[in-house]
């Protein structure tokens, strides 16, 4: 009895999605561009799925291939809520297949090599796939190994938390946080010196720990220490000023120019690289956020930046407005992999995907595209369970609020509601190319 019911539900879900698709301007099959173009999308996370859905809806006859090794898709913005005990690990776990448009061919593999001169990619099994267009959407790689002594198996033990590693690790992090909130002590927070996804997350986690300590009555005997990697707490000056004010209000101890380089789990000692040499700090709770780089396949390819601030970690060299590769005109990048300032959030993906797709299709039709990505990024900056600030900004550090009635730098319940209830359906609609 179970199976038919599931099928019926799947049918109803896709029928509903189809109904919506039919009402949206982007999907008019009648307006679809006829083409025999071979398009390869490398990486089927938030960006890859969104791009595949949009291309499938706007092209007729194209051969669209999505290369993604994982059958599970993680809704990563949910990791913060899991790590805060608000949601279970299952909240973030989706099935990749449920978000792949019908006309897209899925190859369950990893890209091992990019060959932009030969217009082909090679998968891990050695299959070469030629393309007319390539969209790079591999996201980024978490480099836990760069922190001496750190190991994924430590998460949830010895007061070590790290929600970035995945939903089960986020749940283990919650156990560590709950234990810390019960006893109190010294909590160490911070962020890596590299580019990172959701740069607001390290701040949110410090605020959430503070909230739980207060709820448990252990805040008075505790210390929250935030070790910033440079001289700011947030890259947007207006937000930075606000966060400093909040840190002061919540009585956080702040150090600047501190980058976590090693941990000693047995002694609970963290080592930070600082301008004046290494410094050791003792923890009862530590939130570890690893350095982030481009995945090896991109980092070792000719597609990476050759010089400048995005070269060292191998980020994809794209034009920041059109998201087209600066040296290979038939290659685009969307999502975390892009070597652009800011823009490593799912909210950025939502705004990058239509731009890259429009330029790709504009190249097929020869009509070009006037679409530009302005660096839009959004971060519901949680300041306690039940409250957040809806911070949105662009490349030029302008605040770009979506709703005129939500002040970006004020703590309210409504931005929390957006984070807790609206962002996930907004995200999955984006994966289907509908948002």
């Amino acid at each position, binding site marked *: 009895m179970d199976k038919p019911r599931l099928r019926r*539900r799947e049918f*109803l*879900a896709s*029928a*509903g*999605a189809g*109904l*919506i698709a039919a*009402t*949206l*301007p982007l999907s008019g099959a009648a307006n679809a561009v006829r083409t025999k173009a071979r398009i390869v999308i490398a990486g089927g996370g938030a960006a890859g799925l969104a791009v595949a859905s949009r291309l499938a809806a706007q092209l007729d006859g194209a051969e669209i291939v999505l290369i993604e090794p994982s059958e599970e898709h993680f809704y990563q913005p949910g990791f913060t809520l899991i790590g805060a005990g*608000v949601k279970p690990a299952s909240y973030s776990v989706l099935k990749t297949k449920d978000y792949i448009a019908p006309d897209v061919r899925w190859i369950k593999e990893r890209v091992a090599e990019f060959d932009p001169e030969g217009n082909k990619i090679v998968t891990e099994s050695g299959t070469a796939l030629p393309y007319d267009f390539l969209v790079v959407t591999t996201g980024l790689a978490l480099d836990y190994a760069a922190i001496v002594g750190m190991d994924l198996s430590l998460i949830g033990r010895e007061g070590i938390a790290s929600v970035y590693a995945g939903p089960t690790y986020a749940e283990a992090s919650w156990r560590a946080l709950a234990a810390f909130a019960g006893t109190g002590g010294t909590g160490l927070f911070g962020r890596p010196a590299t580019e990172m996804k959701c740069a607001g997350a390290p701040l949110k986690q410090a605020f959430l720990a503070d909230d739980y300590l207060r709820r448990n009555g252990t805040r008075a005997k505790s210390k929250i220490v935030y070790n910033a990697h440079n001289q700011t707490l947030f890259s947007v000056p207006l937000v930075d000023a606000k966060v400093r004010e909040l840190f002061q209000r919540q009585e956080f101890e702040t150090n600047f120019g501190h980058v976590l380089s090693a941990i000693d789990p047995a002694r609970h000692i963290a080592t930070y690289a600082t301008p004046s040499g290494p410094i050791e700090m003792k923890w009862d709770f530590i939130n570890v956020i690893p350095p982030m780089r481009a995945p090896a396949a991109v980092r070792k390819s000719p597609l990476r930046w050759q010089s400048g601030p995005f070269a060292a970690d191998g980020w994809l060299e794209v034009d920041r407005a059109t998201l087209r590769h600066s040296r290979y005109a038939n290659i685009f990048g969307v999502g975390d992999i892009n070597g652009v300032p800011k823009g490593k959030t799912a*909210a950025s993906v939502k*705004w990058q995907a239509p731009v890259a797709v429009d330029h790709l299709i504009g190249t097929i039709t020869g009509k070009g595209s006037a679409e530009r990505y302005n660096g*839009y990024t*959004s971060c519901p900056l949680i300041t*306690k*369970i*039940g*409250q957040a600030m*809806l911070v*949105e900004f662009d490349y030029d550090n302008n605040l*770009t609020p*979506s*709703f005129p*009635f*939500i*002040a970006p730098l*004020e*703590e*309210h*319940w*409504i931005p*929390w*509601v*957006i984070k*807790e*209830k*609206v962002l*996930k*359906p*907004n995200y*999955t*609609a984006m994966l*289907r190319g*509908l*948002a």
Partner: protein
Amino acid sequence: MKDLSPGTLVAILHEMFGFFLWILLGVAALMLVFGVVFLFQRRRFRQNRLQVVLIAATAIGIGAVLIAPMLTNASFANIHGLLDWASLGAIALIGFASVLWMAYIGLSRPDRRPLRTEP
């Protein structure tokens, strides 16, 4: 959240409610049609029913406000500033108005009393 067009909003609601969204929208559309048709008829509540309906609508409006923060893992302590209070006010109003509207459709009866005319 930028550019929340009606199409996007429906897509998001569909992700939230699945096929149930179409049932909800269907019921809402029916309520709207019946409501508008009835508005053109002369209808009335029996006095005692009207009182019950008003009490129920108020209770639902207040109830909606009381449970809204809890449904989002928050509490009343998190309600802060005009935006939050206005949103709660809107929730109360929607709860109140929905009950009133449903009751109007389900419980009001055609008013067959002769129209009073000027002598």
